[in-house]
């Protein structure tokens, strides 16, 4: 048996970042800078979907050592 928790689970706090960023709607409710004709409001959220996955991956690697994967 291995206890999850203790020291390594401190990385879990990183998981709060997507909540703050993606729910702070006034911070990205803008047309500019547009990217390839796509307003900022849209491409910024697209990028943050991907970054959410990256953040989870980082926490997974750091807190679980990839679960032996």
């Amino acid at each position, binding site marked *: *048996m*291995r*206890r*999850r928790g203790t020291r390594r689970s401190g990385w*879990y706090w990183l*998981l*709060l970042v*997507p*909540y703050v960023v*993606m*729910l702070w*709607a*006034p911070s990205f*409710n*803008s*047309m500019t800078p*547009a990217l*390839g*004709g*796509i*307003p900022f*409001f*849209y491409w910024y*959220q*697209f990028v*943050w*979907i*991907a970054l*959410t*996955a990256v*953040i*989870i*991956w980082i*926490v*997974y690697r750091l807190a*679980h050592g990839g*679960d*032996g*994967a």
Partner: protein
Amino acid sequence: MSWPAIAVFLALFALVSVLGFLGAYWKRGNLELLHEWALGGRQFGSLIAWFLIGGDLYTAYTFVAVPGLVYGTGALAFYALPYTAIAFPLVFVFAPRFWTLARNRGYITYADFARERYDSRSLSLAVAITGILATMPYIALQLIGIQVVLKALGFAGSGPWQDLPIIIAFVILAAYTYRGGLRAPALVAFVKDTLIYLTVIVAAIVLPAKLGGWGHVFSAAQSALAARPTPSGILLTPVQYSAFITLALGSALAIFMYPHNITGVLSAKSPAVIRRNTIALPIYSLLLAVLATFGYMAIAAGLKPASSNETVPQLLAAMFPPWFFGFGSAAIVIGALVPAAIMSIAAANLFTRNIYREYINPSCSAQRESTNAKLASLVIKLGALVFVLGLRNIEYAINFQLLAGGWILQTFPTLIFGLYTRWFHRRALLAGWLVGMAVATYMPATNGFHPVYALALGSSVLHWYVAFFALVANLIVATLLTPVFDAIKVARGADKTQPADYLEAA
């Protein structure tokens, strides 16, 4: 009717039906045991789990409704993006813990957990009934997704035969789910998502080019939305901020409370599979993000769908050759079958485990339990079919699903907080649930079934998602009543779970 479209559609549908029936023989197990039939034997690896859970979360109705909502309301509908992103960090935290406990204690449903953790039959029943109630309209909406596509394909005849295609599709679905349980939709999910990804990727490349580029799509959408009788736009207005935020957060907290989604999670073979999936599942969210923009493309293409649900089928029909339209239509219909199967299995589990075995036949054998769940899955699908064909009014199902989203969120304190703490008193949680259910019903019923409710508090007005109001009320009641019940010495019940049950094996 376009014969190339129908030929492609029927060929793909036939392929999937064969796969569905083969599901019973895949990764063989004793289907007379509930965990084999209902959870595929808890043995799915990362790839299968990804297709299964993804196929379960992102239903055909999602793919029809989100672009429809974008077509109808503009920027606010894009709450679907933060919603489907921030659901996953939460799942990463709690789902491996629930999986571990479920494996160690033999749980099939959330209500099994509530029963043991709080030693409370009433709390368990509340969770089970909420789950079943919330699942029914969801299944009905999958049927509506199918209906919309069949209509666009030209199957919408009149007279006694008009419902025959959807009835045939449903009978096939019911038959292979009955036989193979969760293995059937798991196998079909591979085809479903391959078709969906291909359709969306091709459309996302071809359509903007045909419509004069992304810049033109957005500017055309902005002018058209601003000129509507109820003007909106491609950016939020400041008054919409709190609606956008509470819709996103409330939906993200609710999504894994649905019985069918936790069924998908429990079918994974290890906590590591679940964690890896939370990293890979946002790929579906990106797909949904692209698909949401189809609502703007429909505006830019000058389409005027009779109902917003017809936006995507009409866009595909208008912009693509018939064979590709048939391909996309098959993607949507098969995309409805996978979640409909999992939903009916999940609701059947709740009925069998937490109502039938708990109240009707406590001494039933394992085989009897499995048979009962199979029969229940048939009855549940039949109920959804009768609901959709009988009412003939899409509004009822959509309104009912709005209620369902509010209801299911009310199980969050019991289930998710309960995984970490027994601070809350079981009676306080039940009272909180009851108040939350009442608020989640009252608010939509009195504002014309609008997801956002305007609540005047003193001089300010809160524009929040109704489910979120209900959750706040629920939490306040549960928090305030816990010390009260303790003070008057109402029994807390014995927790049957042990600390070791929550720990993952090394």
